[in-house]
């Protein structure tokens, strides 16, 4: 039995050596690079395994068509601790140092969120090869490159779109890959405008990618408007003229930027019902009183039910260039208010525009008549319900007692007639 197994193993080994030996001349014929043939004697076998059973195969053709293969680099240019004179080489090689050639890129990487995380011991953080690949690295302009504009989303999503990796590496923002996938930018990347639609690196940078908490990050609170504005120029110009933009220019970074209303990765079409409805509560983050009084109006009730065909905050106040009513340029200033109402209410008059869309039933100074009307209604409701509540409870008690109570005399009709 043991002999038979050994024989079979030897036969299998011989067969695999023969099979592996055959394509070798062909591989050598492709880019024809002498020094690598030596390495490929072992690594050219697609079934080649290391001591721990891991694959150590290198696809010679794939390497040949890579950017490094095209430059006729030798294996030992990267795997510098291997020497053709000393074979077999050590079982465990040192990590490849891309900085030997790409010194600038590696120096930049060291300062990125990935580089810093790795330095801090987070082994999940991306290194050169996680984004660029190993033996199959292509120039970014090649359509099948991992770092081609069309493929960046998939490359970043390997980690940032995987719940497992996100949990393992405690990646900030969670699974932003799938959020981005369904966003307006993610959809555009799959459509006709894919060439100009932004992918991950357009906002985050590649070798300049930094945590948003860092001042130098393209996605820091302070830099977001500029980053978005690199494509959305008119909006960013309008934003900087508006109250929110001015507050930020004055150093108040609590004032909202682009992503506070639009979100970062999950950005939706601005005129979609979903976004129009959802953005209202973002305004309420700071303007709670105004959101609350808006919800008391027909406008606010209808949008709360999920129907967007009704004035939202931005319908009256504008979006990027929102200004206080005291500013004559504001859509809700005394000068412009009527025109703003007329955008929906054709034929609206000055009286119409004097309606208070944020009337507050608790604010006697702002809306005295409204305040007293609300008070009157509250008292009326309380009075009626209190009186009839008591009336009904007593009545119910009495009728139940008369109908079902003990001591019903003979001849009682059961209709509650009291015998006296």
């Amino acid at each position, binding site marked *: 039995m043991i002999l038979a197994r050994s024989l079979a193993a030897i036969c299998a080994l011989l067969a695999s050596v023969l099979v592996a030996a055959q394509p070798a001349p062909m591989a050598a014929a492709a880019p024809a690079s002498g020094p690598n043939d030596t390495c490929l004697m072992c690594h050219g076998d697609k079934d080649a395994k290391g001591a721990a059973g891991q694959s150590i195969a290198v696809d010679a053709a794939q390497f040949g068509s890579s950017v490094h293969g095209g430059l006729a680099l030798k294996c030992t240019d990267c795997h510098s601790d291997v020497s053709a004179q000393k074979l077999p080489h050590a079982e465990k090689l040192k990590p490849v140092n891309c900085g030997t050639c790409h010194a600038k890129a590696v120096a930049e990487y060291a300062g990125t969120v990935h580089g810093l995380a790795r330095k801090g011991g987070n082994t999940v953080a991306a290194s050169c090869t996680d984004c660029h690949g190993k033996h199959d690295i292509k120039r970014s302009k090649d359509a099948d490159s991992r770092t081609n504009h069309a493929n960046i989303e998939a490359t970043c999503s390997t980690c940032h779109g995987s719940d497992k990796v996100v949990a393992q590496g405690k990646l900030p923002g969670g699974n932003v890959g799938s959020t981005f996938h369904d966003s307006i930018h993610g959809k555009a990347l799959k459509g006709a405008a894919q060439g100009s639609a932004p992918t991950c690196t357009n906002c985050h940078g590649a070798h300049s990618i930094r945590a948003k908490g860092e001042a130098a990050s393209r996605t820091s609170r302070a830099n977001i408007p500029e980053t978005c504005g690199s494509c959305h120029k008119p909006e960013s110009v309008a934003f900087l003229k508006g109250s929110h933009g001015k507050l930020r220019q004055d150093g108040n970074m609590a004032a909202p930027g682009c992503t506070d209303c639009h979100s970062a990765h999950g950005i939706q079409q601005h005129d979609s019902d979903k976004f129009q409805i959802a953005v209202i509560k973002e305004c309420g983050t700071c303007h709670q009183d105004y959101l609350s009084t808006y919800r008391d109006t027909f406008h606010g009730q209808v949008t709360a039910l999920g129907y967007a065909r009704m004035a939202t905050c931005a319908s009256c106040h504008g979006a990027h260039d929102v200004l206080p009513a005291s500013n004559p340029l504001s859509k809700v200033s005394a000068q412009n208010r009527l025109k703003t109402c007329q955008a929906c*209410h054709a034929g609206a008059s000055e009286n119409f525009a004097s309606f208070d869309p944020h009337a507050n039933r608790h604010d006697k100074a702002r809306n005295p*008549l*409204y305040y007293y009307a609300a008070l009157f209604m509250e008292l009326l409701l309380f009075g009626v319900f209190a009186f009839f509540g008591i009336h009904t409870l007593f*009545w119910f008690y009495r009728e139940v007692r008369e109908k079902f109570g003990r001591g019903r005399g003979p001849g009682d009709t059961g*209709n509650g007639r009291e015998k006296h």
Partner: protein
Amino acid sequence: MAIALNQEAPAAGGGAAQRYYRRFTPIERVLHALLMLSFVGCALSGLPLIFADKPWAATLARILGGFEGAGLIHRICAFVMIVVFATHVALVFGRALSRGRIMAVLWGPDSMVPQPQDVIDVYRNFKWFVGVGPRPQFDRWTYWEKFDYWAVFWGMLIIGGSGLLLWFPVFFAKFLPGWIFNIAALVHGEEALLAVGFIFTFHFFNGHLRPAKFPMDTVVFTGRISEHEMKDERRVQFDRLTREGRLATDETTAPSEESKWFGWVVGGVALALGIVAIVLIVSSLF
């Protein structure tokens, strides 16, 4: 409709049968039915706005055809209600003027106007409630029925008036100030909540759900009250009609099967929908 309501059922069993007296005229029964249906329609299509932040509100609005569908139902029902109200007011005026019975409309047992006797009746009823007096007997209209009537009358003016302002704001703003619309929106909702809360609890209890009437009193659908019932609860009216010799003129035939059927089915549906609305409202308050 009026023809069906006028059809009389054959008197069952001849002389031994229960006697019935006319309480509501056919037109009053039609008006109540239309009022009831349009009220339920307005309530269900309006409540989602008042409770817009509750999950059930969005569901109810969706069932009614979304914001456009519910809005259309609300306006159709509002129109029906305004027509009902206008018809009623015209009938009351007609009755007061054409027959020269203006005093009977304004005062006395057939009048809806609150009178000293009503205050006495409230006092006596409470005495009976707490067990220190006999169950009082009433004339044609009890004080709680008058309250129902005036609550609806007032509600019609307030809700109907404010509703028209909100329906045609551009037109009304040509001559009314803007704050009127703030108040119109406020009182439309609050008064509607009062009306819905009142009708679907106290009116239902007083008229239908209390043990003596449970589950439903069909008098407003049949228009006829039995002699037994009149003697039991409205002995003052019965004695007065006997004294005035009007008992025979007010006597009528037994309720038709159609009117009873209509009362049970349509009234029952309205009762059920009303109770659902109350459950939703009460669940939203806590």
